[in-house]
C-alpha cells in the first residue's frame, strides 16, 4: 500500500493518485491549516513543503507526493514556536489571515536557504504569495525579525 509521511507521521494513501495533495491534507487527514485559494498555483495560499520544497499543494497530485515527506503549517514546529511563527505574532502580521499559512511556509524555505535575507531575497522568495489584505510590509518586517530570532536561537 502506498504511504506518505506528513508532519513526521506515516499515512496510508488509499485515494485516487490524481487527487490534489491539498484535498488529501484537508479532507482525509484533517489538517485544515493549509488553505485553498485559487486552485491553479497562482496565489500561494496552499504552500506546503514536499521534501523541503515549497510546493503548491492545489496542483500537486498525490502520485507525486506518495513516498515523500510533507510538512504543513501544523508541523512547522512542535509548539508553534518556529522563529517565523513567533515573529508573525510579535509583528501582528495577519489581517484576515487566510494566506498566512502559505506565506509562512514559503518564508521558511527562504530562511533555511538565506538565514540573513536581504529585502531583495524576500521579494524573490515571496513574490508568489499574494495577500489580498496587503500586509506585505509587515510580512517583510516579520521575516527580518524571524531571521534575528533564528540567529539568537543558534
Amino acid at each position, binding site marked *: 500500500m502506498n504511504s506518505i509521511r506528513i508532519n513526521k507521521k506515516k499515512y496510508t494513501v488509499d485515494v485516487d493518485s490524481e487527487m490534489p495533495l491539498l484535498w488529501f491534507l484537508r479532507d482525509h487527514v484533517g489538517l485544515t491549516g493549509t488553505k485553498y485559494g485559487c486552485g*491553479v*498555483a*497562482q496565489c500561494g495560499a496552499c*504552500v506546503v513543503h514536499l521534501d523541503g*520544497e*515549497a*510546493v*503548491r499543494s492545489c*496542483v*500537486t*497530485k498525490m502520485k*507525486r507526493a506518495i513516498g515523500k515527506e510533507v510538512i504543513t503549517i501544523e508541523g512547522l514546529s512542535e509548539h508553534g514556536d518556529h522563529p517565523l511563527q513567533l515573529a508573525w505574532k510579535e509583528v501582528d502580521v495577519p489581517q484576515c489571515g487566510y494566506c498566512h499559512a502559505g506565506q509562512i*511556509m*514559503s*518564508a521558511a*524555505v*527562504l530562511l533555511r*536557504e*538565506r538565514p540573513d535575507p536581504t529585502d531583495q*531575497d524576500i521579494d*524573490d*522568495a*515571496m*513574490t*508568489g*504569495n499574494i495577500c489580498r489584505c496587503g500586509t506585505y510590509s509587515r510580512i517583510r518586517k516579520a521575516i527580518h525579525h524571524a531571521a534575528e530570532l533564528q540567529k539568537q536561537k543558534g
Partner: protein
Amino acid sequence: MELYKEKRPLGKIRFTVTLSVIALFLIGIVSAFSEEASYAATSGGIYAAVKKDSVKSVNAFKKVYAVLQSPRCMNCHPRGDIPLQGDDNRLHAMFPKRGADGKGILAMKCTNCHQTENTVGLKTPPGSPEWHLPAATMKMVFQGRSAHELAKQLVDPKQNGNKNLKALIAHADDGLVKWGWNPGEGRTSPPISHAEFKEAWITWLTTGAYAPKQ
C-alpha cells in the same frame, strides 16, 4: 586562309572573355555566401561528417527559426532572467527568477508549480519532467535574436553548453523541447510539426549549419 588566320585570335579572345565572365559569375556566387562560408569554416569540429550545402542549410534554418521564435520555445529562452508566458510572450506572472541552475530560487522553484505533465484547464501551469530554463551559465537566448545571431549562437560551443553535432541533433528529442507540441489548453503549438522541425533541424546542422545573412 588569311581570313581564317585572322579569325582564330578573335576566337581565342572570345573564349578567354567567356571564361572570365563565368569565373566572375562564380566568384560573385561565392562572395554572396562569403559570410556563411567563413563562419562555417571557423566553427571547428562540430562540422565533421557534414556535407556542406549553404543554400539547403539556410533554407532549412528558416523553418528552424520560425519554431524557435514561437512562444512555446521562446518563453523559456528569454533575454532576461525571468521566463515569459502566453502567446504574447509577456513576463511570467510572479516574476520567478532563473537561478544558477535554471530551476528557480528559494521558494520559487519552477517545479513548485509546474508538474511533470500539464495541469488540466485554462490558465493552469503547463508541465513536463525537468521543467526549467537554461542555466545561468548557458542562457541560450532566443528572444530578440535575428536568424543570423541565433544560428551562430546555437552552434557556438561556448554558448550552447559545449554541445557537439550529435548532442545538438539529440536535443530535438529532448522532453522539454517536445512539450512544445503538447502545450496544453490555450497555448498554440509551433508553426510546423515536430517531425518537420526535427527534419529541418538535422538538415540545417548536417549541411553546415550556415547562418543566414544579417
